[in-house]
Protein backbone atom coordinates (compact mmCIF):
# COMPACT_ATOMS: atom_id res chain seq x y z
CA UNK A 1 0.00 0.00 0.00
CA UNK A 2 1.94 2.96 -1.24
CA UNK A 3 -0.92 5.43 -1.26
CA UNK A 4 -0.54 8.73 0.48
CA UNK A 5 -2.22 8.14 3.79
CA UNK A 6 -4.80 10.50 5.10
CA UNK A 7 -4.18 9.67 8.71
CA UNK A 8 -1.06 11.65 9.43
CA UNK A 9 0.43 14.79 7.97
CA UNK A 10 3.21 13.96 5.56
CA UNK A 11 6.76 15.04 6.45
CA UNK A 12 8.97 16.88 4.01
CA UNK A 13 12.26 15.20 3.24
CA UNK A 14 15.41 16.60 1.68
CA UNK A 15 16.70 15.17 -1.58
CA UNK A 16 19.25 13.15 0.34
CA UNK A 17 16.58 11.60 2.54
CA UNK A 18 16.90 13.63 5.69
CA UNK A 19 13.81 15.06 7.34
CA UNK A 20 13.34 18.81 7.11
CA UNK A 21 13.23 19.94 10.73
CA UNK A 22 11.16 22.77 12.13
CA UNK A 23 12.90 25.78 13.62
CA UNK A 24 14.56 24.76 16.90
CA UNK A 25 13.55 21.15 16.44
CA UNK A 26 16.27 18.76 17.58
CA UNK A 27 16.62 15.12 16.66
CA UNK A 28 16.88 12.89 19.70
CA UNK A 29 16.89 9.30 18.61
CA UNK A 30 16.66 7.12 15.54
CA UNK A 31 15.39 3.56 15.35
CA UNK A 32 15.48 1.39 12.28
CA UNK A 33 12.99 -1.28 11.17
CA UNK A 34 10.02 0.16 12.99
CA UNK A 35 6.36 -0.67 12.20
CA UNK A 36 3.38 1.48 13.05
CA UNK A 37 0.18 -0.39 13.76
CA UNK A 38 -3.30 0.42 14.90
CA UNK A 39 -6.11 -1.91 15.89
CA UNK A 40 -8.73 0.83 16.03
CA UNK A 41 -9.23 1.43 12.35
CA UNK A 42 -9.33 -1.26 9.66
CA UNK A 43 -8.28 1.32 7.08
CA UNK A 44 -5.06 2.11 8.86
CA UNK A 45 -2.32 1.99 6.20
CA UNK A 46 0.65 -0.29 6.64
CA UNK A 47 3.78 1.36 7.89
CA UNK A 48 6.28 -1.45 7.74
CA UNK A 49 9.92 -1.47 8.61
CA UNK A 50 10.69 2.21 8.36
CA UNK A 51 13.03 4.61 10.08
CA UNK A 52 11.56 6.21 13.18
CA UNK A 53 13.00 9.53 14.25
CA UNK A 54 12.12 11.07 17.58
CA UNK A 55 12.63 14.80 17.75
CA UNK A 56 11.75 17.35 20.39
CA UNK A 57 8.66 18.20 18.38
CA UNK A 58 7.56 15.19 16.38
CA UNK A 59 7.69 11.51 15.70
CA UNK A 60 8.81 11.02 12.11
CA UNK A 61 8.41 7.79 10.21
CA UNK A 62 10.35 7.38 6.95
CA UNK A 63 9.95 4.39 4.65
CA UNK A 64 13.17 2.40 4.44
CA UNK A 65 13.09 2.53 0.66
CA UNK A 66 14.51 6.00 0.26
CA UNK A 67 13.07 6.51 -3.21
CA UNK A 68 9.55 6.83 -1.88
CA UNK A 69 10.14 9.97 0.14
CA UNK A 70 6.58 11.04 -0.40
CA UNK A 71 5.31 8.47 2.07
CA UNK A 72 7.16 9.92 5.04
CA UNK A 73 4.84 10.98 7.82
CA UNK A 74 5.08 13.17 10.88
CA UNK A 75 3.12 12.86 14.11
CA UNK A 76 3.41 16.07 16.10
CA UNK A 77 4.00 15.25 19.77
CA UNK A 78 1.50 17.95 20.59
CA UNK A 79 -1.29 15.77 19.19
CA UNK A 80 -0.40 12.86 21.43
CA UNK A 81 -2.88 12.76 24.26
CA UNK A 82 -1.52 9.80 26.14
CA UNK A 83 1.41 7.42 26.12
CA UNK A 84 0.59 4.05 27.65
CA UNK A 85 3.22 2.74 30.00
CA UNK A 86 4.45 -0.58 28.70
CA UNK A 87 3.07 -3.54 30.61
CA UNK A 88 5.51 -5.82 32.22
CA UNK A 89 4.22 -9.25 31.40
CA UNK A 90 5.57 -12.62 30.32
CA UNK A 91 4.10 -11.96 26.90
CA UNK A 92 6.11 -8.75 26.55
CA UNK A 93 9.36 -10.63 26.90
CA UNK A 94 8.71 -12.63 23.75
CA UNK A 95 7.28 -9.76 21.76
CA UNK A 96 9.27 -7.25 19.80
CA UNK A 97 9.54 -4.15 22.00
CA UNK A 98 6.55 -1.86 21.53
CA UNK A 99 4.85 1.18 22.93
CA UNK A 100 1.29 2.39 22.47
CA UNK A 101 0.14 5.96 22.45
CA UNK A 102 -3.08 7.78 21.84
CA UNK A 103 -3.16 10.52 19.27
CA UNK A 104 -6.02 12.79 18.38
CA UNK A 105 -6.25 13.62 14.73
CA UNK A 106 -9.04 15.56 13.10
CA UNK A 107 -11.06 15.35 16.31
CA UNK A 108 -10.72 11.59 16.13
CA UNK A 109 -8.78 9.58 18.63
CA UNK A 110 -6.57 6.74 17.57
CA UNK A 111 -4.32 4.34 19.42
CA UNK A 112 -1.10 3.68 17.56
CA UNK A 113 1.47 1.00 18.43
CA UNK A 114 5.13 1.47 17.64
CA UNK A 115 6.80 -1.91 17.12
CA UNK A 116 10.59 -2.02 16.95
CA UNK A 117 11.75 -5.03 14.99
CA UNK A 118 15.32 -3.88 14.43
CA UNK A 119 18.22 -3.61 16.81
CA UNK A 120 18.24 -0.20 18.35
CA UNK A 121 18.51 1.47 21.67
CA UNK A 122 14.91 0.80 22.61
CA UNK A 123 15.52 1.24 26.31
CA UNK A 124 16.92 4.65 25.61
CA UNK A 125 14.06 5.54 23.30
CA UNK A 126 11.21 5.14 25.75
CA UNK A 127 12.32 7.58 28.42
CA UNK A 128 13.23 10.10 25.74
CA UNK A 129 9.83 9.72 24.16
CA UNK A 130 8.18 10.50 27.48
CA UNK A 131 10.60 13.29 28.18
CA UNK A 132 10.07 15.03 24.87
CA UNK A 133 6.32 14.64 25.06
CA UNK A 134 6.25 16.19 28.53
CA UNK A 135 8.92 18.72 27.60
CA UNK A 136 6.53 20.51 25.25
CA UNK A 137 9.30 22.15 23.28
CA UNK A 138 6.77 23.37 20.72
CA UNK A 139 5.16 25.60 23.33
CA UNK A 140 8.36 27.42 24.25
CA UNK A 141 8.84 28.02 20.55
CA UNK A 142 5.62 29.88 20.14
CA UNK A 143 6.32 31.92 23.26
CA UNK A 144 9.78 32.72 21.96
CA UNK A 145 8.63 33.76 18.55
CA UNK A 146 5.89 35.98 19.91
CA UNK A 147 8.35 37.87 22.10
CA UNK A 148 10.67 38.13 19.13
CA UNK A 149 7.86 39.70 17.23
CA UNK A 150 7.17 42.26 19.90
CA UNK A 151 10.81 43.22 20.12
CA UNK A 152 10.94 43.60 16.38
CA UNK A 153 7.95 45.88 16.29
CA UNK A 154 9.26 47.90 19.19
CA UNK A 155 12.55 48.44 17.46
CA UNK A 156 11.33 48.98 13.97
CA UNK A 157 8.34 51.09 14.70
CA UNK A 158 8.52 52.95 17.97
CA UNK A 159 6.44 55.74 16.50
CA UNK A 160 3.70 53.47 15.26
CA UNK A 161 3.16 52.22 18.78
CA UNK A 162 0.45 54.22 20.45
CA UNK A 163 1.41 53.33 23.99
CA UNK A 164 2.55 56.81 25.04
CA UNK A 165 5.53 57.51 27.22
CA UNK A 166 5.10 54.59 29.54
CA UNK A 167 5.43 51.09 28.26
CA UNK A 168 3.51 48.15 29.63
CA UNK A 169 6.21 47.27 32.18
CA UNK A 170 6.17 50.78 33.57
CA UNK A 171 9.57 51.96 32.38
CA UNK A 172 9.89 55.27 30.61
CA UNK A 173 9.53 54.89 26.89
CA UNK A 174 11.87 56.97 24.89
CA UNK A 175 10.99 57.86 21.39
CA UNK A 176 13.15 58.93 18.50
CA UNK A 177 16.85 58.38 18.16
CA UNK A 178 17.47 58.23 21.92
CA UNK A 179 14.89 55.48 22.23
CA UNK A 180 16.46 53.42 19.54
CA UNK A 181 19.89 53.94 21.05
CA UNK A 182 18.71 52.91 24.51
CA UNK A 183 17.02 49.85 23.09
CA UNK A 184 20.19 48.92 21.26
CA UNK A 185 22.15 49.43 24.47
CA UNK A 186 19.80 47.16 26.41
CA UNK A 187 19.97 44.47 23.81
CA UNK A 188 23.71 44.77 23.68
CA UNK A 189 23.95 44.38 27.44
CA UNK A 190 21.75 41.30 27.52
CA UNK A 191 23.70 39.77 24.66
CA UNK A 192 26.90 40.48 26.51
CA UNK A 193 25.52 38.86 29.62
CA UNK A 194 24.51 35.69 27.86
CA UNK A 195 27.88 35.56 26.13
CA UNK A 196 29.63 35.83 29.46
CA UNK A 197 27.50 33.12 30.94
CA UNK A 198 28.13 30.93 27.95
CA UNK A 199 31.86 31.13 28.31
CA UNK A 200 31.98 30.53 32.04
CA UNK A 201 32.75 26.90 31.49
CA UNK A 202 32.37 24.36 28.81
CA UNK A 203 29.27 22.79 30.27
CA UNK A 204 27.58 26.11 30.38
CA UNK A 205 28.55 26.60 26.78
CA UNK A 206 27.04 23.28 25.84
CA UNK A 207 23.78 24.10 27.51
CA UNK A 208 23.81 27.55 25.97
CA UNK A 209 24.70 26.26 22.54
CA UNK A 210 21.15 26.27 21.32
CA UNK A 211 20.59 29.76 22.63
CA UNK A 212 23.73 30.91 20.88
CA UNK A 213 22.52 29.52 17.61
CA UNK A 214 19.16 31.20 18.13
CA UNK A 215 20.92 34.44 18.94
CA UNK A 216 22.97 34.15 15.79
CA UNK A 217 19.86 33.48 13.79
CA UNK A 218 18.09 36.45 15.34
CA UNK A 219 21.00 38.75 14.64
CA UNK A 220 21.15 37.54 11.09
CA UNK A 221 17.47 38.25 10.61
CA UNK A 222 17.93 41.70 12.04
CA UNK A 223 20.90 42.38 9.83
CA UNK A 224 18.93 41.19 6.85
CA UNK A 225 15.95 43.38 7.59
CA UNK A 226 18.26 46.24 8.47
CA UNK A 227 20.14 46.04 5.21
CA UNK A 228 16.87 46.00 3.31
CA UNK A 229 15.33 49.04 4.93
CA UNK A 230 18.37 51.28 5.26
CA UNK A 231 20.29 50.64 2.09
CA UNK A 232 20.18 54.28 1.20
CA UNK A 233 21.53 55.47 4.50
CA UNK A 234 24.21 52.87 5.06
CA UNK A 235 27.55 53.54 3.50
CA UNK A 236 29.60 50.93 1.72
CA UNK A 237 31.91 50.16 4.58
CA UNK A 238 29.03 49.40 6.89
CA UNK A 239 27.45 47.20 4.27
CA UNK A 240 30.71 45.33 3.88
CA UNK A 241 31.01 44.58 7.56
CA UNK A 242 27.36 43.60 7.68
CA UNK A 243 27.83 41.16 4.87
CA UNK A 244 30.86 39.73 6.60
CA UNK A 245 28.92 39.40 9.82
CA UNK A 246 26.13 37.68 7.94
CA UNK A 247 28.56 35.24 6.46
CA UNK A 248 29.90 34.40 9.88
CA UNK A 249 26.47 33.90 11.30
CA UNK A 250 25.35 31.85 8.36
CA UNK A 251 28.20 29.45 8.92
CA UNK A 252 26.95 28.61 12.41
CA UNK A 253 23.73 26.86 12.79
CA UNK A 254 23.06 23.19 12.37
CA UNK A 255 20.61 23.16 15.26
CA UNK A 256 20.15 19.42 15.24
CA UNK A 257 23.44 17.73 14.36
CA UNK A 258 23.39 13.98 13.84
CA UNK A 259 25.31 12.47 16.74
CA UNK A 260 26.47 9.01 17.63
CA UNK A 261 24.27 9.30 20.69
CA UNK A 262 21.06 9.97 18.83
CA UNK A 263 21.60 7.83 15.75
CA UNK A 264 23.51 4.87 17.12
CA UNK A 265 24.14 2.32 14.42
CA UNK A 266 22.54 4.61 11.87
CA UNK A 267 25.08 7.31 12.69
CA UNK A 268 27.21 7.29 9.54
CA UNK A 269 24.26 6.87 7.25
CA UNK A 270 22.36 9.78 8.77
CA UNK A 271 25.49 11.90 9.05
CA UNK A 272 26.10 11.26 5.39
CA UNK A 273 22.63 12.49 4.49
CA UNK A 274 22.91 15.56 6.67
CA UNK A 275 26.28 16.35 5.12
CA UNK A 276 24.83 16.01 1.63
CA UNK A 277 22.20 18.60 2.53
CA UNK A 278 24.75 20.84 4.18
CA UNK A 279 27.32 21.00 1.39
CA UNK A 280 24.91 22.33 -1.18
CA UNK A 281 25.26 26.01 -0.28
CA UNK A 282 29.07 26.01 0.15
CA UNK A 283 29.31 24.11 -3.14
CA UNK A 284 27.39 26.73 -5.03
CA UNK A 285 29.62 29.40 -3.57
CA UNK A 286 32.79 27.53 -4.43
CA UNK A 287 31.72 27.01 -8.03
CA UNK A 288 30.72 23.37 -7.92
CA UNK A 289 33.76 21.88 -6.27
CA UNK A 290 35.12 22.24 -2.77
CA UNK A 291 38.08 20.87 -0.90
CA UNK A 292 37.31 18.18 1.66
CA UNK A 293 39.33 20.03 4.28
CA UNK A 294 37.28 23.18 3.77
CA UNK A 295 34.08 21.22 4.20
CA UNK A 296 35.45 19.65 7.34
CA UNK A 297 35.98 23.09 8.84
CA UNK A 298 32.65 24.48 7.67
CA UNK A 299 30.68 21.44 8.77
CA UNK A 300 32.22 21.29 12.20
CA UNK A 301 31.78 24.99 12.70
CA UNK A 302 28.13 24.62 11.83
CA UNK A 303 27.79 21.72 14.24
CA UNK A 304 29.18 23.84 17.02
CA UNK A 305 29.93 21.50 19.88
CA UNK A 306 29.16 18.11 18.36
CA UNK A 307 32.38 17.89 16.37
CA UNK A 308 33.07 14.97 14.08
CA UNK A 309 36.39 13.37 13.26
CA UNK A 310 38.00 13.46 9.81
CA UNK A 311 37.43 9.68 9.55
CA UNK A 312 33.71 10.13 10.18
CA UNK A 313 33.56 12.81 7.50
CA UNK A 314 35.35 10.62 5.00
CA UNK A 315 33.08 7.71 5.77
CA UNK A 316 30.02 9.91 5.44
CA UNK A 317 31.25 11.02 2.03
CA UNK A 318 31.91 7.50 0.81
CA UNK A 319 28.37 6.50 1.80
CA UNK A 320 26.90 8.94 -0.71
CA UNK A 321 27.29 6.45 -3.50
CA UNK A 322 24.86 4.11 -1.73
CA UNK A 323 21.87 6.40 -1.53
CA UNK A 324 22.24 8.35 -4.73
CA UNK A 325 23.11 11.72 -3.24
CA UNK A 326 23.34 14.72 -5.57
CA UNK A 327 26.98 15.22 -4.52
CA UNK A 328 30.04 13.01 -4.76
CA UNK A 329 33.52 12.57 -3.42
CA UNK A 330 36.30 12.81 -5.95
CA UNK A 331 39.95 11.96 -5.56
CA UNK A 332 42.49 13.62 -7.80
CA UNK A 333 45.62 11.86 -9.01
CA UNK A 334 47.61 13.98 -6.59
CA UNK A 335 45.59 12.55 -3.69
CA UNK A 336 43.64 15.75 -3.03
CA UNK A 337 40.03 14.94 -2.23
CA UNK A 338 37.15 17.20 -3.09
CA UNK A 339 33.39 17.25 -2.99
CA UNK A 340 31.59 18.12 -6.19
CA UNK A 341 28.10 18.09 -7.63
CA UNK A 342 27.36 14.98 -9.62
CA UNK A 343 26.27 17.24 -12.44
CA UNK A 344 29.60 19.07 -12.27
CA UNK A 345 31.43 18.58 -15.53
CA UNK A 346 35.13 18.93 -16.10
CA UNK A 347 34.45 19.90 -19.70
CA UNK A 348 32.96 23.17 -18.59
CA UNK A 349 35.98 23.94 -16.43
CA UNK A 350 38.32 22.94 -19.25
CA UNK A 351 36.50 25.22 -21.65
CA UNK A 352 37.00 28.11 -19.25
CA UNK A 353 40.66 27.25 -18.77
CA UNK A 354 41.09 27.10 -22.53
CA UNK A 355 39.63 30.55 -22.98
CA UNK A 356 41.89 31.77 -20.22
CA UNK A 357 45.12 30.43 -21.74
CA UNK A 358 44.31 31.67 -25.24
CA UNK A 359 44.18 35.31 -24.13
CA UNK A 360 47.09 37.19 -25.78
CA UNK A 361 48.85 37.69 -22.43
CA UNK A 362 48.51 34.06 -21.44
CA UNK A 363 49.63 32.84 -24.86
CA UNK A 364 52.83 34.75 -24.38
CA UNK A 365 53.45 34.33 -20.66
CA UNK A 366 51.32 31.39 -19.56
CA UNK A 367 49.21 31.27 -16.42
CA UNK A 368 49.83 30.26 -12.84
CA UNK A 369 47.50 28.39 -10.54
CA UNK A 370 46.62 31.66 -8.81
CA UNK A 371 45.71 33.32 -12.12
CA UNK A 372 43.35 30.45 -12.80
CA UNK A 373 42.02 30.60 -9.24
CA UNK A 374 41.11 34.25 -9.67
CA UNK A 375 39.39 33.76 -12.99
CA UNK A 376 37.54 30.63 -11.99
CA UNK A 377 36.73 31.97 -8.54
CA UNK A 378 38.12 28.97 -6.69
CA UNK A 379 40.92 28.21 -4.25
CA UNK A 380 44.44 28.11 -5.75
CA UNK A 381 44.99 24.51 -4.64
CA UNK A 382 41.77 23.57 -6.41
CA UNK A 383 42.75 25.55 -9.49
CA UNK A 384 46.05 23.72 -9.64
CA UNK A 385 44.22 20.39 -9.64
CA UNK A 386 42.10 21.57 -12.54
CA UNK A 387 45.17 22.72 -14.44
CA UNK A 388 46.95 19.44 -13.85
CA UNK A 389 43.91 17.51 -15.02
CA UNK A 390 43.73 19.70 -18.11
CA UNK A 391 47.42 19.02 -18.66
CA UNK A 392 46.91 15.27 -18.45
CA UNK A 393 44.18 15.61 -21.09
CA UNK A 394 46.66 17.33 -23.38
CA UNK A 395 45.00 20.74 -23.21
CA UNK A 396 47.87 22.41 -21.40
CA UNK A 397 51.55 21.89 -20.92
CA UNK A 398 53.92 23.09 -18.29
CA UNK A 399 56.83 25.43 -18.04
CA UNK A 400 59.09 25.18 -15.01
CA UNK A 401 61.63 27.93 -14.68
CA UNK A 402 63.15 30.11 -11.97
CA UNK A 403 60.02 32.26 -12.44
CA UNK A 404 57.86 29.42 -11.19
CA UNK A 405 55.45 26.84 -12.44
CA UNK A 406 53.34 28.08 -15.33
CA UNK A 407 50.89 26.53 -17.74
CA UNK A 408 50.58 27.20 -21.47
CA UNK A 409 48.17 26.06 -24.10
CA UNK A 410 49.52 22.84 -25.58
CA UNK A 411 51.00 23.66 -28.99
CA UNK A 412 52.88 20.43 -29.49
CA UNK A 413 50.15 18.65 -31.47
CA UNK A 414 49.94 21.69 -33.79
CA UNK A 415 53.59 21.66 -34.76
CA UNK A 416 54.38 19.91 -38.01
CA UNK A 417 57.19 17.47 -37.33
CA UNK A 418 58.07 17.10 -41.04
CA UNK A 419 58.63 20.80 -41.47
CA UNK A 420 59.39 22.43 -38.18
CA UNK A 421 59.52 25.91 -39.65
CA UNK A 422 56.03 25.74 -40.99
CA UNK A 423 53.30 27.62 -39.14
CA UNK A 424 49.83 27.04 -40.51
CA UNK A 425 47.83 30.20 -41.18
CA UNK A 426 45.01 29.09 -38.96
CA UNK A 427 44.85 27.46 -35.59
CA UNK A 428 46.26 28.06 -32.19
CA UNK A 429 49.92 27.79 -33.23
CA UNK A 430 49.70 30.76 -35.58
CA UNK A 431 47.66 32.62 -32.97
CA UNK A 432 50.48 32.04 -30.53
CA UNK A 433 53.18 32.98 -33.05
CA UNK A 434 51.39 36.27 -33.72
CA UNK A 435 50.96 37.00 -30.00
CA UNK A 436 54.64 36.35 -29.37
CA UNK A 437 55.90 38.36 -32.35
CA UNK A 438 53.64 41.27 -31.44
CA UNK A 439 55.78 41.96 -28.41
Amino acid at each position, binding site marked *: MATVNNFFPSASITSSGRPVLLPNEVECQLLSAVDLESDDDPNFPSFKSGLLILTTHRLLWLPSNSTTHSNAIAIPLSLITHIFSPKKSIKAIFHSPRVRFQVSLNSKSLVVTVVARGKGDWDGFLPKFFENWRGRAWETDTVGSSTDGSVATAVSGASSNSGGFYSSDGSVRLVGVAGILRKEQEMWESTDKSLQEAFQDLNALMSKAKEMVMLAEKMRQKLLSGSNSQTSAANDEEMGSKEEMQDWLLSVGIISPVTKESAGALYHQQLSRQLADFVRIPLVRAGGMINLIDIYCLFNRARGTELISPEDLLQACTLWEKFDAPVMLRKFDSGVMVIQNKSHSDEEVFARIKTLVTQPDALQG*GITASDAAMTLGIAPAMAKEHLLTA*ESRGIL*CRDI*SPDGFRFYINL*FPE*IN*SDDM*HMVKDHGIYSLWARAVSAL
Partner: protein
Amino acid sequence: MQKLGDFKLPQFFNYPPYFTLQPVRDTREKQVQLWKDLILDYCKTQKIFVIELEDEFPLFSNPVIERSLSHEARKAFLSALVSEGRAEWLDKGHRKCLILWHQIQDWANIILLFVKDNGLEDGVMTIEEIRSGIESRGTELHGIDRTILMRALKLLEHKGKVAIFKGTSTDDEGVKFSV
Protein backbone atom coordinates in the same frame (compact mmCIF):
# COMPACT_ATOMS: atom_id res chain seq x y z
CA MET B 1 63.03 34.91 -37.34
CA GLN B 2 65.45 34.11 -34.58
CA LYS B 3 68.81 32.64 -35.54
CA LEU B 4 71.65 30.84 -33.85
CA GLY B 5 74.71 31.83 -35.87
CA ASP B 6 73.59 31.06 -39.40
CA PHE B 7 71.11 28.43 -38.20
CA LYS B 8 67.46 29.34 -38.58
CA LEU B 9 65.51 28.44 -35.46
CA PRO B 10 61.90 27.29 -35.63
CA GLN B 11 59.09 29.37 -34.12
CA PHE B 12 58.52 26.99 -31.25
CA PHE B 13 62.02 27.65 -29.97
CA ASN B 14 60.43 30.61 -28.18
CA TYR B 15 57.70 28.46 -26.63
CA PRO B 16 58.69 28.09 -22.95
CA PRO B 17 57.17 24.59 -22.43
CA TYR B 18 59.52 23.37 -25.17
CA PHE B 19 62.29 23.70 -22.56
CA THR B 20 60.50 21.81 -19.78
CA LEU B 21 60.37 18.04 -19.95
CA GLN B 22 56.63 17.35 -20.35
CA PRO B 23 55.21 14.66 -18.07
CA VAL B 24 52.17 13.71 -20.15
CA ARG B 25 52.99 10.86 -22.55
CA ASP B 26 51.57 12.10 -25.86
CA THR B 27 52.84 15.61 -25.32
CA ARG B 28 56.25 14.33 -24.35
CA GLU B 29 56.57 12.06 -27.38
CA LYS B 30 55.97 15.00 -29.68
CA GLN B 31 58.35 17.17 -27.70
CA VAL B 32 61.11 14.54 -27.86
CA GLN B 33 60.52 14.14 -31.61
CA LEU B 34 60.89 17.87 -32.16
CA TRP B 35 64.07 18.02 -30.10
CA LYS B 36 65.62 15.06 -31.91
CA ASP B 37 64.97 16.68 -35.28
CA LEU B 38 66.27 20.02 -34.12
CA ILE B 39 69.46 18.55 -32.62
CA LEU B 40 70.27 16.54 -35.78
CA ASP B 41 69.46 19.49 -38.01
CA TYR B 42 71.60 21.86 -35.99
CA CYS B 43 74.55 19.47 -35.68
CA LYS B 44 74.47 18.76 -39.40
CA THR B 45 74.56 22.38 -40.50
CA GLN B 46 77.08 23.35 -37.82
CA LYS B 47 79.22 20.20 -38.33
CA ILE B 48 79.00 19.27 -34.67
CA PHE B 49 79.84 15.65 -33.90
CA VAL B 50 80.04 15.54 -30.15
CA ILE B 51 77.76 17.10 -27.52
CA GLU B 52 79.08 17.23 -24.00
CA LEU B 53 76.32 17.36 -21.43
CA GLU B 54 78.31 19.29 -18.87
CA ASP B 55 79.34 22.01 -21.31
CA GLU B 56 77.30 24.86 -22.62
CA PHE B 57 75.57 23.94 -25.83
CA PRO B 58 74.00 26.88 -27.68
CA LEU B 59 70.93 24.98 -28.77
CA PHE B 60 70.04 23.98 -25.22
CA SER B 61 69.27 27.45 -23.98
CA ASN B 62 67.26 30.36 -25.27
CA PRO B 63 68.32 33.68 -23.77
CA VAL B 64 65.39 35.45 -25.45
CA ILE B 65 62.83 33.73 -23.23
CA GLU B 66 65.37 32.94 -20.49
CA ARG B 67 64.85 29.22 -20.61
CA SER B 68 67.34 26.38 -20.78
CA LEU B 69 67.12 22.63 -20.69
CA SER B 70 67.76 20.89 -17.41
CA HIS B 71 70.40 18.18 -17.24
CA GLU B 72 67.63 15.60 -17.05
CA ALA B 73 65.96 16.93 -20.18
CA ARG B 74 69.21 17.02 -22.19
CA LYS B 75 69.90 13.45 -21.21
CA ALA B 76 66.36 12.40 -22.12
CA PHE B 77 66.55 13.90 -25.62
CA LEU B 78 70.03 12.53 -26.35
CA SER B 79 69.04 9.10 -25.02
CA ALA B 80 66.11 9.17 -27.42
CA LEU B 81 68.57 9.77 -30.27
CA VAL B 82 70.81 6.96 -28.99
CA SER B 83 67.94 4.50 -28.88
CA GLU B 84 67.15 5.35 -32.48
CA GLY B 85 70.74 4.76 -33.60
CA ARG B 86 71.22 8.44 -34.39
CA ALA B 87 73.68 8.98 -31.55
CA GLU B 88 76.01 7.06 -29.27
CA TRP B 89 77.29 7.58 -25.79
CA LEU B 90 81.07 7.84 -25.81
CA ASP B 91 81.51 7.06 -22.11
CA LYS B 92 79.80 4.97 -19.51
CA GLY B 93 78.76 8.00 -17.47
CA HIS B 94 76.73 9.30 -20.44
CA ARG B 95 78.43 12.66 -20.44
CA LYS B 96 79.67 12.74 -24.03
CA CYS B 97 77.42 11.96 -26.94
CA LEU B 98 78.43 11.27 -30.53
CA ILE B 99 75.79 12.60 -32.91
CA LEU B 100 75.27 10.61 -36.09
CA TRP B 101 73.34 12.93 -38.37
CA HIS B 102 74.54 10.51 -41.02
CA GLN B 103 74.58 6.95 -39.87
CA ILE B 104 77.84 4.98 -40.30
CA GLN B 105 76.51 3.26 -43.44
CA ASP B 106 75.71 6.65 -44.97
CA TRP B 107 79.16 7.94 -44.10
CA ALA B 108 80.67 4.90 -45.80
CA ASN B 109 78.69 5.68 -48.97
CA ILE B 110 79.84 9.29 -48.83
CA ILE B 111 83.46 8.09 -48.67
CA LEU B 112 82.96 5.84 -51.70
CA LEU B 113 81.42 8.71 -53.64
CA PHE B 114 84.32 10.94 -52.65
CA VAL B 115 86.81 8.31 -53.82
CA LYS B 116 85.13 7.98 -57.20
CA ASP B 117 84.82 11.74 -57.66
CA ASN B 118 88.54 12.15 -57.13
CA GLY B 119 89.64 9.13 -59.19
CA LEU B 120 91.21 7.51 -56.19
CA GLU B 121 89.84 4.05 -56.87
CA ASP B 122 93.25 2.49 -56.34
CA GLY B 123 94.80 5.34 -54.42
CA VAL B 124 96.24 5.70 -50.95
CA MET B 125 95.35 8.41 -48.45
CA THR B 126 96.14 9.05 -44.82
CA ILE B 127 93.32 9.55 -42.40
CA GLU B 128 94.36 13.13 -41.81
CA GLU B 129 94.33 13.78 -45.57
CA ILE B 130 90.72 12.65 -45.74
CA ARG B 131 89.75 14.86 -42.81
CA SER B 132 91.57 18.03 -43.76
CA GLY B 133 93.21 17.56 -47.14
CA ILE B 134 92.70 19.60 -50.28
CA GLU B 135 90.60 16.89 -51.91
CA SER B 136 87.96 16.78 -49.19
CA ARG B 137 87.60 20.55 -48.94
CA GLY B 138 84.02 21.53 -49.59
CA THR B 139 82.68 18.03 -49.03
CA GLU B 140 80.92 16.65 -45.98
CA LEU B 141 84.04 14.69 -45.15
CA HIS B 142 85.95 17.85 -44.35
CA GLY B 143 86.42 18.03 -40.61
CA ILE B 144 84.69 14.74 -39.95
CA ASP B 145 85.01 13.32 -36.48
CA ARG B 146 87.88 10.83 -36.33
CA THR B 147 85.84 8.18 -34.51
CA ILE B 148 83.08 8.29 -37.10
CA LEU B 149 85.56 8.20 -39.99
CA MET B 150 87.39 5.21 -38.55
CA ARG B 151 84.11 3.37 -38.05
CA ALA B 152 82.99 4.04 -41.61
CA LEU B 153 86.36 2.90 -42.95
CA LYS B 154 86.22 -0.25 -40.86
CA LEU B 155 82.80 -0.97 -42.32
CA LEU B 156 84.27 -0.59 -45.81
CA GLU B 157 87.26 -2.73 -44.87
CA HIS B 158 84.83 -5.37 -43.76
CA LYS B 159 83.33 -5.27 -47.25
CA GLY B 160 86.80 -5.50 -48.80
CA LYS B 161 86.72 -2.03 -50.33
CA VAL B 162 89.59 -0.50 -48.37
CA ALA B 163 92.59 -1.72 -46.48
CA ILE B 164 93.60 0.15 -43.37
CA PHE B 165 97.28 0.08 -42.54
CA LYS B 166 98.97 1.38 -39.48
CA GLY B 167 102.02 3.55 -39.37
CA THR B 168 104.31 4.21 -36.47
CA SER B 169 101.94 6.75 -34.93
CA THR B 170 98.27 7.58 -35.27
CA ASP B 171 99.23 10.47 -37.53
CA ASP B 172 100.29 8.27 -40.38
CA GLU B 173 97.51 5.74 -40.37
CA GLY B 174 96.37 5.32 -43.89
CA VAL B 175 93.98 3.57 -46.21
CA LYS B 176 94.36 1.95 -49.59
CA PHE B 177 91.19 2.05 -51.65
CA SER B 178 90.30 -0.83 -53.92
CA VAL B 179 86.86 0.08 -55.16
